């Protein structure tokens, strides 16, 4: 009994910390509609800055608390700079581009933090005056945790006062409800956005700084907190402060008690709850449905015409290279080329969902990974020959695509994307925690091709044939009635339904088809690497796929192909050339978003069309 009370208290402390971060994220989203991946980076920066300040300033109350507050404010200033230099220029860009840009910031901050603070974990001092513990029901409970329990509600109270008692707060709430209305009222929107971003970043920084006495500061804090903060914000309802508080409480306690009751599936539990909430309440606990979309023919997506002639030549040249070059290549180059082919298919499969489908997936790696595990499990437990393993891959991925997709495609926008993330995390957790079957973190080793396909050159040609065939099949589908129906429901749900198109079914089948294709890629990847690991289904790989598609451009299938080649090649080169590849990659991403908002292929196409128009 006493134990349970203490567990509940420790859940409250986690909830409090989580709330600080989530509150900042939700307030920023409410006003700017930006899904800010970099919010976790601000949290990490807050922790690092606090470490520097607290260890530099004289010891004692002033040094510690002054350091924490200064770190939060400094983080706010960094957020402000990011807003002014980057985000302000892309408020009108599509949601996913904003996401891409903020992910570029994540990469940049990671390397800057590495440069500044080094790779080792940093331990901060404990909080003066809160070093001890308090006796609760005969058990000791740390004072600092009690302090954190108080901080959450106090910050919530202050924020509510700010939003309900000041003119600025009224504007923020109005902007959250209806952004266009505020613009129409002639309010200085820029100042409003910038100040909100500052506030949100301060909250993230404060959340990070306050972790100093609890845990070591390290370079993984950003991605681990951002996933949790996303979950909290989405479960609570995007833009809802009260919802964030409620969801933080729910998730915090779930963590605390999940460990007691079901230690094996704690990771799954949080995402299961999120999936459940979204299925029952598609806009989160306290979120409101967004207003009806304006206009019917308003889609800015361009018409898909026949491929321009230069593109066909380029494609033919690329194909010739892909077929002939390997004859001269060594083993290492062959492995790289094999990966190129695999990632082209992986990106093309995501493109079907994102481009024609008009949906976003933050969890596409799930199907890549499920394909890889499908093949590896067949090889390991059934001693299946390679071709059977390769057939098991799309089968497994497609099955789960049907299952997960059934839930995901019912929702829209960010909620749908977050649900894809939740399912991907569930798949990841199972791969990670079900050690007896999947080998857990150690993965499954010894997934090698049959002897006929063992030479790297043969395996490369097999991969090329399958990936090329599958990608061309996807192209065929996009140009066929089914692909048009998919675009139809994206362009105008109203008109699509009115001419007999079942949007749900169309989206669902497209989702499953994309999963099948990603599964093929995953299966080939498993045999190429000889092993599978939980990272195959991890968030970073999902983000890779997103980056490939967005870098290339979502409008036509040439986009993800070019994006996959550019991204894989770039990453490959950067990793080899410099330790600071994240910094450079992040910089390139940010530059691309700012200067080529249509992606590489889109920009090239626009240029080509313009040059032809002039002639």
């Amino acid at each position: 009994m006493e134990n349970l009370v203490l567990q509940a208290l420790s859940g409250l402390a986690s909830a409090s910390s989580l709330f600080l971060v989530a509150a900042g994220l939700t307030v920023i989203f409410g006003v700017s509609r930006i899904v800010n991946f970099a919010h976790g980076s601000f949290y990490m920066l807050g922790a690092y800055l606090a470490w520097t300040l607290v260890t530099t300033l004289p010891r004692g109350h002033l040094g510690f608390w002054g350091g924490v507050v200064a770190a939060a404010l400094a983080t706010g200033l960094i957020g402000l700079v990011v807003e002014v230099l980057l985000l302000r220029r892309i408020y009108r860009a599509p949601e996913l581009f904003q996401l891409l840009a903020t992910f570029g910031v994540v990469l940049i901050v990671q390397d800057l933090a590495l440069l500044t603070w080094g790779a080792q974990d940093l331990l901060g001092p404990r909080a003066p005056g809160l070093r001890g513990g308090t006796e609760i029901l005969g058990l000791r409970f740390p004072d600092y945790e009690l302090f954190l329990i108080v901080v959450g509600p106090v910050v919530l109270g202050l924020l509510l006062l700010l939003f309900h008692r000041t003119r600025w707060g009224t504007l923020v709430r109005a902007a959250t409800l209806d952004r266009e209305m505020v613009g129409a009222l002639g309010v200085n929107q820029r100042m409003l956005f910038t100040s909100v971003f500052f506030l949100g970043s301060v909250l993230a920084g404060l959340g990070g700084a306050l972790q100093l006495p609890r845990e070591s500061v390290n370079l993984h804090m950003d991605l681990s907190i951002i996933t949790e903060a996303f979950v909290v914000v989405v479960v609570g309802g995007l833009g809802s402060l009260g919802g964030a508080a409620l969801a933080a409480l729910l998730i915090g306690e779930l963590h605390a008690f999940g460990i007691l009751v079901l230690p094996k599936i704690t990771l799954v539990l949080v995402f299961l709850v999120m999936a459940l909430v979204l299925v029952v309440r598609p806009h989160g606990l306290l979120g409101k449905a967004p207003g009806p979309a304006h206009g019917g023919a308003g889609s800015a997506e361009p018409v898909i015409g026949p491929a321009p002639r230069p593109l066909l030549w380029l494609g033919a040249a690329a194909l010739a290279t892909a077929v002939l070059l390997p004859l001269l290549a060594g083993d290492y180059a062959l492995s790289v080329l094999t990966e190129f082919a695999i990632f082209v298919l992986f990106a093309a499969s995501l493109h079907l969902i994102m481009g024609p489908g008009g949906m976003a997936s933050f969890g596409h790696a799930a199907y890549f990974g499920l394909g890889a595990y499908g093949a590896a499990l067949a090889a390991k437990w059934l001693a299946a020959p390679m071709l059977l393993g390769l057939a098991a891959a799309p089968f497994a991925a497609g099955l789960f695509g049907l299952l997960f997709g059934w839930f995901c495609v019912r929702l829209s926008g960010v909620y749908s994307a977050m649900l894809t993330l939740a399912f991907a995390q569930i798949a990841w957790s199972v791969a990670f925690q079900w050690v007896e079957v999947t080998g857990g973190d150690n993965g499954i080793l010894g997934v090698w091709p049959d002897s006929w396909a063992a030479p790297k050159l043969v395996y490369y040609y097999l991969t090329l044939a399958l990936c090329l065939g599958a990608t061309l099949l996807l192209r065929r589908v996009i140009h066929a009635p089914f692909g048009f129906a998919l675009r139809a429901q994206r362009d105008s749900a109203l008109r699509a339904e009115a001419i007999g198109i079942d949007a749900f079914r169309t989206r669902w089948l497209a989702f499953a088809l994309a999963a099948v294709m990603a599964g093929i890629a995953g299966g080939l990847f498993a045999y190429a690497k000889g092993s599978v690991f939980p990272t195959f289904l991890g968030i970073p790989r999902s983000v890779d796929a997103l980056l490939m598609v967005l870098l290339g451009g979502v409008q036509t299938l040439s986009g993800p192909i070019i994006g996959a080649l550019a991204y894989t090649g770039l990453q490959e080169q950067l990793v080899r050339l410099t330790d600071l590849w994240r910094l450079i990659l992040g910089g390139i991403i940010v530059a691309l978003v700012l200067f080529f908002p249509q992606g590489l292929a889109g920009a090239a196409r626009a240029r080509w069309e313009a040059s032809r128009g002039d002639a």
Partner: protein
Amino acid sequence: MATLEVEALRKSFGGVQAVRGVSFAVQPGEMLALIGPNGAGKSTCFNMLNGQLRPDAGRVRLLGQDITGLAPRRVWRLGVGRTFQITATFGSMTVLENVQMALLSHHRRLGQLWTPVSRMDRAPAEALLARLGMAAQASRPCGILAYGDLKRVELAIALANEPKLLLMDEPTAGMAPQERVGLMALTAGIARERGIAVLFTEHDMDVVFSHADRILVLDRGALIAEGAPAAVRADPRVREVYLGSGATQGGH
């Protein structure tokens, strides 16, 4: 048998009773105009007829079959085409492709994964567009079309379904007066030739009185008059609520 029979249809939004007990029928080949001032409940009626809104009470029957509360895509399958007051087309497709989509759906070929759309139902789509005077626009993207042309695309989409009932919510909004009369004359011709029942709303009284076989007048959700154009024109109640206000042409 009447193509469409509507019985005591009702709908309210919160406190607003948008439609309060409307009944009427449309015969094959008949042009029936539904007129009334802005906010009278015309669009709400249309939305209940094709399943976009579920009525609070009342029945909708198509060729004797009860279709009340069916989803719009099922209503389309039963042979109803509609145009929207605020046009809705597929902006990333050309005019021709928009019409092809409707034809493909009508022929139940939208699930096909292999043959390119560019090779399917092209000729009938082109013929339909030619009939509506849109042949020259066939390869233009719908996203950049003028409003009046979008209305024609919507009509082509609706006709592609070989409908028994055509629902047209302000089909000529955004067109020049000359164009309006031309389009409605064309519609009336097609309707008579194919026996299509047409229900339309319209603000331009010239169009209404020259092309409607019969007129329904809606005011604040209730029918206040029904009959041949001459009779409706003479009805003192109609003159009071509608024509008397001087608004023979208004917004939407």
